[in-house]
C-alpha cells in the first residue's frame, strides 16, 4: 500500500476529488496548509506599512491506495491539478506498512 500526499491549489480540489473517486479510490483526507516554494509570496499593505507574505494557502490531499492504483492516481492528480503556473504543487509517495479500518477492525488491503 502506498501513501500519496499531494499539495494542490484550492481551486482544483473538486476535479481532483472527482477523478480519484472515478478511479475507485476508497477515501481521502484533506487539510488546509500553507506552502512555500518556487511560487513567490506577495506584498500586502496595512495602514501604509507593507507585509511580505511568504506562505500561500494550499490544500494537502492524502490518500492511501493499493500499489496497483498508484500510477493512475498520480496521473489523475497531475492532470487535474495542473494549471501550468508556478505553485501547482507536488506529489509525495511513501510506502505504508499497515492499514486498519477502525469500524470493523479489518486490516491490510481490505481496510483501505
Amino acid at each position: 500500500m502506498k501513501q500519496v500526499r499531494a499539495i494542490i491549489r484550492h481551486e482544483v480540489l473538486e476535479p481532483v476529488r472527482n477523478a480519484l473517486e472515478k478511479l475507485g479510490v476508497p477515501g481521502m483526507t484533506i487539510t488546509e496548509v500553507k506552502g512555500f516554494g518556487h511560487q513567490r509570496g506577495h506584498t500586502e499593505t496595512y495602514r501604509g506599512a507593507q507585509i511580505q507574505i511568504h506562505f500561500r494557502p494550499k490544500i494537502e490531499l492524502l490518500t492511501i491506495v493499493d500499489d496497483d492504483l498508484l500510477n493512475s492516481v498520480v496521473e489523475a492528480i497531475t492532470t487535474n491539478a495542473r494549471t501550468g503556473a508556478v505553485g501547482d504543487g507536488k506529489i509525495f509517495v511513501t510506502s505504508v506498512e499497515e492499514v486498519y479500518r477502525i469500524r470493523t477492525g479489518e486490516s491490510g488491503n481490505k481496510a483501505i
Partner: protein
Amino acid sequence: MKIRKYFVAIVMFCTFLGLFPNVAFSAEPSVEIIAIDTVWTMIAAFLVFFMQAGFSFLEAGLTRAKNVGNIMMKNALDFGIASISYWAIGFAIMFGTGNALFGMSGWFVNVSASQADKVFSSLAWSNVPIMAKLLFQLVFAGVAATIVSGAMAERTKFHAYLIYSAVITGVIYPVVGHWIWGGGWLSALGFQDFAGSTVVHGVGAWAALAGVLIIGPRLGKYGKARGDVRAIPGHSMPMVMLGVFILWFGWFGFNAGSTMSVSDLSFAKIALVTNLAGAAAMLTGMIASWLRSRKPDVTLTAGSAIAGLVAITAPSAFVEPWAAVVIGGFAGVIYVSAVVLLDYLRLDDPVGAIPAHGICGLFGTLSVGLLASPRLVESVGVGKAGFFYTGSFDQFMIQLVGVAAVFAFVFIASLVLFVTINATVGLRVSREEEIHGLDIHEHGMWGYPEQFVGELPQQIAAHYPPPGIAKQATKRIISKEEAV
C-alpha cells in the same frame, strides 16, 4: 406607572395665572406636551426594540458557534411572534378593562382614539395616543420572551420555541402585567415596580427556570460527581460585549421611557440612576469574579452590568442616585454568586439569564421597599417610601407578596406549558442534533456557513472550472456564458 400629571398642571397654572389672572385654566395638557410625550415614548420604544439585537448577541457570544444561526433565528422570531400575539390578545389582557386578574377588552387594539381611554382605562393616565402605548408595551413583551431563549439555549427544538414564545408573550406576561401595571390586584396593593424588574425580567426568568428544569442541562455540562461542573465556553467576547452595550443603550429607553411622559422631567433622573446602577454592578461583579477566579472574568463582568440594570429597573423612579449605586453594587455580587450557585444546583443556564433577570430582578424589586425615597414616591404616586426612610417594613412586605405571587404564577404556568410541549411536539433536540449543533439540523445550514461547510475553504471558493486558471487570468469582463 402612573406619573402625576399635577406637576404640569400646576406649573402651567401658575405661569398663566401670573399672566392672565382672570382666566380659569383647564388642566388638559397642551398639544405640545402631548407631542413631546409621544416623541419621547416612541423613541424609548425604538430603543427597547433594539434591545432584541443586544439579547441576541449576548446569547450568541456566550454559546457555541454551531448554534449561532439558531440563536439568531430565535431572537428574531420571538419578536415577530410577540408583535402579532401581543397586538392580538396580549395588550387586551394586560391593559384592557377587566377584573383584578386579567383584562378582557380591546382585542386587536381595534378601538378608535376616542374609545381608547375607556377600553384601556389603566393607561388613561398617559397623554400619548393608543398606538404609541401599544408599540411601547409590545417591545417590552418581546424582551420577556427573549430572556427565556438564553437560558434554554443550545438544546431546545425550534418549533417548541416558537410555541412557547407565543404563549408567554400572548398570555403569561400580559396576565402578570395586568396585576401590576394594568390595574390588577398588585397595583391596588401599591406594589412598586416602575419599569419591570418583576413584570418583565422576573416573568422571563421564572419561565426560564421552569424551562431549564424540564429540559435539563446541555450534554457534558455536569459530571457524575456533585461539584463536577464543566465550562462550555462561548464563542465570542466581542459579541457578548456589543450585546451589553446595546442592552445598556436600550435600557435608557426601558426605564426612562416608562414615564411615557416628559412633563415632570423625572426621566432624566431615571436615566442617570439607571446608568449608575449598571456601572456600579459592573465594577462589583468584576471584583467578585476576580476574587473567585483570580482573574477578572469577561463574561461575568458583562453579565453583572446586565444584573445591575435589571435590579435598578423597578426602583429607578423611586430612588436617589446614591441608592442606585448601592443597589447596583449589591446586584453585581449577587449575580456572580448566583451564577456559581446555579451551576452547583446543576441548573444549566448558558447565559446567566436566571441570575441576572430572576435573582437580581427579585433583589431590585425588594430593594424599592428599603430605599424608595419619600420625595420620589410622592411624585410617582404609587405605594410608600422604604424602610431606610420610614423605619417600617410595610412597603417591603408588599414587595415581597408581589414577587412571591409572580414567581408562583409564572413558574407553575410555565411548568405546565413546558411539560405539555415536551409531551406533544417535544422540547429537546436529539442527542445527535445537540452534538452536531442546532444550526445544521434545525435550519439546514451553519450559522457561519462558509467556515463550516465542508469543502469551501475560506479564501477561495471551490467549483470553478480550474485547470488553466492562472493562464486565463487576464483583466476582462467575463461574459455570462463564460461565468459558468
